[in-house]
Structure formats: structure tokens, C-alpha cells
């Protein structure tokens, strides 16, 4: 046990001596936490609109007005022709085109049916989908306005209507930041922990100091623990600072217990660092370790459900998320922050992440050979 203390002192001394890295470990993730949630927003507020109005009637103006006052759309220009509007999209000036044909008002009132064209820049399917959905809402609303104006009240009530009321639990204000901040926090803890641990042992290999330790009588688990504990502490500190920033900047704090959060993060970090050490033991040079770390980081993050729901993935990708430790932390963080889930509700998450911790660290100790 005493040996472990000496090794730990060495690791901490080395970490605190390297001021540049220390500063980066703390500063970079936190800056990211402050900036990213502002960047990572799918809330659409400024869909730019180019209108081609061939009708110039009262109703066409009303429709356009309905769009521009909705809060989602911003009118950039009136184009003479559709091609001209298309040009605006090509230059990225406009996201959406509305073309109102000649005779729009006449057809609507006389034929009871008319048609308009809505064209969206669909390079980003997500943005286009939302823009079109908002347009549909506005047009539906406009339809009702027209009907209210022309139909007698009685005919309205003879049609059976299912009234749909929606309620949004856990985040009733639909605050996107409440969703993204816990996720980004989970991600940053992961990044710092995994990168630092995956580079550590391999650095000693590359510089040659590991040989001096290998010829000494230290125990394998002492060595692994001495590598694990410092980053475990760092990870939890980064998380704590992250919680503080979430509260100060975004006013977000966990609905659930902080202690469950720390307990889970504690177990999670053991698992993650075990994986990092495994990477480090497997790699021959720091450069190689970085490649491998980068690879796993990317796959973990992309398949971790940070931005896109894992439910929507095809089966093969969904099965991959089950063996992705990062997705568990992201999920638990969100459940704690937004739903205030109890320990009992998280028992399976705890069980699985403990399993990861045992397996990864077991493999790390097993694979770390004091021989060459």
C-alpha cells in the first residue's frame, strides 16, 4: 500500500508540473461548455425566406404576412421569378422559397382549392424538415382563418374532431440547452479522462522510464491504480466545475441527487480510465495511442446519442450503443438533470457500467506485462 502512495505522489507531481497541459485540461473543456451549448442549437428562429408573389392579391399578402409575423421566418426579398429566388438559395441568402401562383385568391374562393409551391434548401435535411413543418403549421392556420371567415359556424361543428393536447414532461419549456448541457458535460469528462489516460503509460514506454519500474518489485495492480486514481480525481474535478458552470451560466442543476451523479461518474470514470489504460498498454507510441484514442472517441460520441436519438438508429448501430460506455453516462446525466431519476431507476445503468469497469480494468491489469 505504501508503494502505491509513492507512485501516486509521482503521478500527481508530474501532472501538476506540466502547467500547459494542466491549464488545457481545465480551461479548454470549460470554455467548450460555455460556448458549445450556444452553438449546438436546432432551435430555428431565422429561416430566411424569398417570396415570389405572382398574384399580388389581398389573400396572398395576408399569407405572406402570416409567415413573417410567425417568429420563425425572416423575409429577405421579393423575387420576380422562381429562378431568381432559386439564385438566392444558391447564394445561401435564402433557405426557403414560397411561390404564389397567379389566380391564387380567385381559385381559393371560387374553386375552394388552390395550390402554392414551397421549396426548401434541403442540403441539411434536418433544417429543411423543420422549415417545412413550420410552413405547414402556418398554412393550416391560414386555412382555418379563411374557413372561419367564409363558413357559417354551424357547419364547423358537424365534423367530428379529435382534440389532441400535448404535454411535454421534464422540460416543459422545451429548453434545448437543458438537453445539450448535461450531454456536453458528460462528453468533456470523457474526453479529458480518456485522452489523458490513454497517453500516459505509452509515454513512459516511449521515454523509457517504464523499464525502470518493470525491474522494480512493484505489483501490477499498484501500477494500474497509480495511473488510474489521479485521472479519476481530475475527472471528478472537471465534472464539479462543469456543474458549477452549468448552474451559473445556464441555471441548470440536477433535479435528482448530486450524490447519485457523483457515484455514477465515479464508477464510469473507473471504466473509462481502464479502457484508456488498455489503449495505452496496447499502443507502441504516443502517436499511435492518439490515433486509436481519436478513433474510439469519435465512434463513441457519434453513437452515443449526444445529438441524435439512439432509437432512430438501425439495429446494428443500436446494438453498438449498448456496448458504448459513453452513451450510458450521457443518458444518466440527462435523467438526473431533467428527470431526477432515483438510484433504483438507474440500477441497470449502474450494473452495466460496473461491469465495464471490472472488464476494462481486469484486461488492463492482465495485459500490462512487466516483461518485454
Amino acid at each position, binding site marked *: 500500500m505504501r508503494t502505491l502512495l509513492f507512485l501516486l505522489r509521482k503521478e500527481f507531481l508530474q501532472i501538476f508540473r506540466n502547467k500547459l497541459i494542466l491549464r488545457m485540461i481545465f480551461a479548454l473543456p470549460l470554455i467548450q461548455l460555455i460556448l458549445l451549448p450556444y452553438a449546438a442549437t436546432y432551435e430555428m428562429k431565422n429561416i430566411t425566406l424569398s417570396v415570389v408573389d405572382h398574384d399580388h392579391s389581398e389573400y396572398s399578402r395576408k399569407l405572406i404576412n402570416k409567415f413573417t409575423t410567425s417568429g420563425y421566418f425572416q423575409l429577405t426579398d421579393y423575387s420576380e421569378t422562381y429562378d431568381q429566388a432559386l439564385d438566392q438559395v444558391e447564394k445561401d441568402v435564402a433557405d426557403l422559397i414560397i411561390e404564389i401562383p397567379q389566380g391564387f385568391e380567385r381559385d381559393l374562393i371560387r374553386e375552394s382549392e388552390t395550390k402554392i409551391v414551397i421549396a426548401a434548401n434541403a442540403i441539411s435535411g434536418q433544417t429543411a424538415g423543420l422549415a417545412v413543418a413550420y410552413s405547414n403549421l402556418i398554412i393550416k392556420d391560414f386555412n382555418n382563418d379563411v374557413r372561419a371567415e367564409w363558413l357559417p359556424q354551424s357547419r364547423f361543428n358537424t365534423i367530428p374532431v379529435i382534440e389532441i393536447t400535448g404535454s411535454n414532461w421534464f422540460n416543459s419549456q422545451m429548453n434545448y440547452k437543458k438537453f445539450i448541457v448535461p450531454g456536453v458535460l458528460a462528453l468533456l469528462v470523457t474526453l479529458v479522462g480518456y485522452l489523458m489516460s490513454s497517453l500516459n503509460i505509452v509515454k513512459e514506454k516511449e521515454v523509457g*522510464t517504464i523499464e525502470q519500474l518493470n525491474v522494480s518489485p512493484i505489483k501490477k495492480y499498484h501500477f494500474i491504480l497509480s495511473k488510474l486514481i489521479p485521472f479519476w480525481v481530475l475527472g471528478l474535478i472537471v465534472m464539479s466545475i462543469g456543474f458549477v458552470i452549468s448552474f451559473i451560466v445556464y441555471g441548470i442543476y440536477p433535479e435528482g441527487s448530486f450524490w447519485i451523479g457523483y457515484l455514477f461518474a465515479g464508477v464510469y470514470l473507473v471504466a473509462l480510465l481502464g479502457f484508456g489504460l488498455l489503449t495505452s498498454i496496447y499502443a507502441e507510441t504516443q502517436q499511435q495511442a492518439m490515433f486509436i484514442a481519436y478513433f474510439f472517441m469519435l465512434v463513441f460520441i457519434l453513437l452515443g446519442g449526444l445529438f441524435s436519438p439512439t432509437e432512430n438508429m438501425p439495429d446494428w448501430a443500436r446494438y453498438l450503443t449498448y456496448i458504448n460506455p459513453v452513451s450510458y453516462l450521457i443518458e444518466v446525466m440527462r435523467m438526473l438533470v431533467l428527470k431526477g431519476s432515483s438510484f433504483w431507476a438507474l440500477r441497470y445503468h449502474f450494473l452495466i457500467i460496473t461491469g465495464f469497469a471490472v472488464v476494462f480494468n481486469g484486461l488492463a491489469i492482465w495485459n500490462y506485462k512487466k516483461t518485454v
Partner: protein
Amino acid sequence: MNREVVIKTDKLTKKFGDFIAASEITFEVFKGEIFGFLGANGAGKTTAMKMLIGISKPSYGKAQIAGFDVYKQTEQIKKNIGYMSQKFSLYEDLTIKENINLFGGIYGLSGKQIETKSNELIIKLNLYKEADKLVGSLPLGWKQKLAFSIAILHEPKIVFLDEPTGGVDPITRRQFWDMIYEAAHNGITVFVTTHYMDEAEYCDRVSIMVDGVIKALDSPAELKKQFNAISMDDVFLRLARGAQRGD
């Protein structure tokens, strides 16, 4: 003469696939002896040494280090030996004192022992001013002397030195050998590989390895007589002439 044997090997062999890096090495080293392990680059010195210090498993053959078996008792061996590699391996981002502390602690010295040893060492190497400086900022010669002192900090039975004086100026080399003599005088057996033939003259006995095989083993004086040579350099050249490996 009935001296205590501290290293004893019998047909110790290491193969990497078809390549035999060290072939049926058999020798004995006595307590307090300075044993030179000579050979050209690639002759198999380092491979042989790594088997002796317990970080490389032999393919076959037997060996006992300080009475412990190299197959089963590697951790006991490690408690009883010191090691200094050709790659300088103290932590450059730790200070001299911190390095002493670390390795003292790893070998289980008590806090008091570490403090006494640390002070002695700093006085001996004349490092008062540098004691709290990072090892990385020291000149190479100082680092080597420091590394050796730390390797014998826990008073091991045997200290293994893998080309300890590579790249060091002649004066520092001389000083380094003075430290080796002192260690041997205190009863520590010194097992040293080198390819400086003048250093071979300082050893009590030397073995010369060519292509993984020990070609000669005796005191420098005897070897010179045997090969009718004027210097160890000469002995070495005669033996190594037929070598296949090396650069």
C-alpha cells in the same frame, strides 16, 4: 576459494522465432565481483541481461539470481537487484529529490531511511544546489551518476548496468567507475555490459559474447595471456572477427 555464487546460469537461451538471440549461456558470478559482459552491438548482451533481471522469459535453460529462479521468482529477484538501462530512465520531469523519494519508496525503504540516503547521496554527488531542480535540466554525466546512485539506493545484492557510460566524457566515466568500485567494495555485485574495451580492464572478470554465444570468460589478464594480446581491445577483435551479426 569458496565464494558465494550470486548469479548462476545453465544453458540459458532466448529464441525469437528461428532467431537465437542468446544461446546456451552458462556462467557464474561471485559476490562482490565486478563482472564485465562484453560484446558487439547485437551480440545478445541486452537480451541475456533482460532474462537475468526478470523482464524477459527464457526459452529454456536455468538461471538463479541471488538464489531465486528466473522463471518463477521474478518478483523476489526484483527486490534484490538494482538496474540502470542504457536509455536514461529517471523521470526528467521530477526533481532529484523527488526521484530519490519515488524509487526509495518503491523498494520499500522507510521514510527515515530515504531521508538519510537522500542526504548522503546529495553530499556525495555534490548536488546541494541542484537537489530541487528537474532531472531533465542536468548534464548527461550527472544524470548517469545519479541514476547509478538511485539504482543502488536500496542496497541490492546485485546491480545490473546496461552500457551505463554511453555518450559520457572520459573524466565522468572515470568518476563513474570509482562509484562502481565503491559499490563492489561494499559487497554489491556489479554486472555491467559495455563495449568500451578500456572499461573491460577495470573488471574482475569478463565474458565476451559473439553472435549470442559466450566465446571467452576469464580475468582480463588471463584473457590477454590466452589470446596473446596486448590489450582487451585486441582480444575482442580476434574473437569478434568471425561475427555474423552486428552493425
